[in-house]
């Protein structure tokens, strides 16, 4: 098993948000997590990636056979965990090229490899930009600065393609995308899909799941997974809405 989350409890400022969550993901699988706003989907992503302020009060996160709850976020990333952010941040003055090169080389250094040569790096960028139809100019601009909402999301997928993670978490990468952009994002994911990696796709709508077909769908509500099923569960949710989940509330 690639990722095994056991009885996870996460608190922000002492307030419990994730309240005993279990989730197992094998290599080669795509899992979708759905649920209404504010149920803790992004909090789960933050806990897996090790963001400061998201306190794990109980439980374990096993990744590649290691409990990673104490591991620094950059080390988790270098071990292959990638997050496509719901709200990608701007870094003024730092070009995408420079940023990506730093990231790629950080990972190589972690794996005991020499830094990538400039020529090799540029070739890799070209290849991956094509994958997400990213405009050539975007990589010359500062990280996410002045990018439209759609461009930011595509940029996240581009970075994912560059870093070739083992576990990719996509946090509402589909929100705010038109259908064409959505297809591009899906294409990016589908091309990277293999039996050597896995995806955790957080989404609000089942729309994206028409293009990235999941193996499992989980419903997150009030900090716990209240229902799991196959890809049809997504359709069911779309029909019924989230109202019926209220009965699962712990409060």
């Amino acid at each position, binding site marked *: 098993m690639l990722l095994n989350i056991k009885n996870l409890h996460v608190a922000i400022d002492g307030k419990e948000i994730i309240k005993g969550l279990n989730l197992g993901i094998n290599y080669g699988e795509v899992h979708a997590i759905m649920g209404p706003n504010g149920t803790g989907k992004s909090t789960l992503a933050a806990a897996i*990636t090790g963001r400061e302020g998201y306190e794990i009060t109980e439980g374990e996160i096993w990744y590649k056979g290691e409990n990673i709850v104490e591991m620094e976020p950059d080390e988790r990333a270098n071990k292959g965990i990638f997050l496509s952010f719901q709200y990608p*941040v701007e870094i003024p003055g730092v070009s995408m090229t420079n940023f990506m090169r730093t990231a790629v080389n950080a990972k190589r250094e972690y794996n005991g490899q020499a830094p990538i040569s400039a020529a090799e790096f540029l070739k890799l960028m070209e290849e991956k930009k094509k994958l997400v139809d990213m405009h050539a100019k975007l990589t010359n601009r500062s990280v996410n600065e002045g990018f439209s909402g759609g461009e930011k999301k595509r940029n996240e997928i581009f970075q994912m393609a560059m870093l070739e993670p083992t576990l990719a978490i996509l946090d509402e990468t589909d929100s705010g995308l038109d259908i064409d952009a959505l297809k591009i994002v899906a294409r990016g994911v589908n091309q990277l899909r293999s039996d050597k990696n896995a995806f955790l796709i957080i989404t609000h709508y089942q729309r994206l799941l028409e293009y990235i077909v999941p193996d499992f769908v989980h419903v997150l509500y009030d900090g716990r997974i209240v229902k799991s099923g196959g890809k049809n569960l997504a359709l069911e949710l779309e029909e019924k809405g989230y109202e019926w989940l209220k009965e699962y509330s712990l409060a």
Partner: protein
Amino acid sequence: MATDSNEILEQVTQSEYKYGFYTDIETEFAPKGLDENTIRYISAKKEEPEWMLEFRLKAFRHWQQLPEPEWAHLHYPKIDYQDAYYYAAPKPKKELQSLDEVDPELLETFNKLGISLEEQKRLAGVAVDAVIDSVSVKTTFQDTLAKHGIIFCSFSEAVRNHPELVRKYMGTVVPYTDNFFAALNSAVFSDGSFVYIPKGVRCPLELSTYFRINAANTGQFERTLIVADEGSYVSYMEGCTAPMRDENQLHAAIVEIITLDNAEVKYSTVQNWYPGDKDGNGGIYNFVTKRGLCKGRNSKISWTQVETGSAITWKYPSCVLMGDNSVGEFYSVAVTNHFQQADTGTKMIHIGKNTRSTIISKGISAGRSNNSYRGLVKILPGATNARNFSQCDSLLLGDQCGAHTFPYIEAKNESSIVEHEATTSKISEDQLFYCNQRGIDTEKAIGLIVNGYAKEVLNKLPMEFAVEAQKLLSISLEGSVG
């Protein structure tokens, strides 16, 4: 110059100062202390003409009457000017003909600094005039420069070989009466660089000087004079670094630049003097007077500085825009970490018509440091249609450091337009996490974000310098967060 910093103590982690080593070169000292005899000693050592000695003595007598300035946003123990050596020269063996004759230990020093002259020599496009503790050791590329009639030599040589130029321009931009440290420098200055670019000549090389303070307890007082004759252009780079010592060392330099009609001088500094240790012990006191005079019409002077070192920095590279349509620019990045203090900025004095000035200042403070921008924009009554744009940004890392902005504006001509913008921001946790999530550790992430923040200024540096400056920014902030 011993420092007592016991009152301010708290452990902050830090990496060691990379350039802190001491080279054991035989050194010749002037007797400790400062009086007229010291000055006569220095002047005699340098075999100076009478007029030079007279200039020094006048400056010294003036200095003796001056109180030390106290208005800067800086705190340091009183400097005992009698407890220092004012002249230290590597013992001269004989005139040097080639690099082979340079003291091997000295070459080793340059190697450690990463600026080996041998390499520099091959690095076409850069001429280096290296100043180690006061005496100019070796100047390269003289021949190329001579072909264009360019004079680039140590200040002492200029006094000997080009007295008419030195006498005509020295002290015309920064008179010895200007301020306390300028007077001190004028009295005891040891050496420095002299540049003259003749009419219509575009200097084909970036001229470069590396300054380094080596011997213990020696103040370094160098003096640079750059004269750009009509229609000429030169880009000049100054790099500084000093070995690590527990006691503080004083550095009080003067740089004067003069541009005549249609001439342009670009002056870039990367200052990386020893900032003191993480507890605030030791480090350079850097009190510098840099000023450019745009004397001619359509002339231009640009100051670009990246300041990462020194325990205390007191520095205001300025432009006096005398010629009509002349342009002054100041681009600055000042980084302070641990217990460093910087009080830096610029003065733009608009005298001529249609004069323009731009000020871009980026202050970055970390640890328990203090970083102040102090700037004056002065528009005189005759400066019709003068324009200034100033932007002063401060970036804070952590919550124990300080950023201060003191912009002074005096506009005496109604047609002038003066704009001032200022921002203060903190390095955001969101940005750091975003980098972390991409596998970039926090230290590297800070380097990346800070370099991005300073990019507007770094872009103004010549290529060779920009790369070094970027590394320095990252290095100087190591251990600032964590």
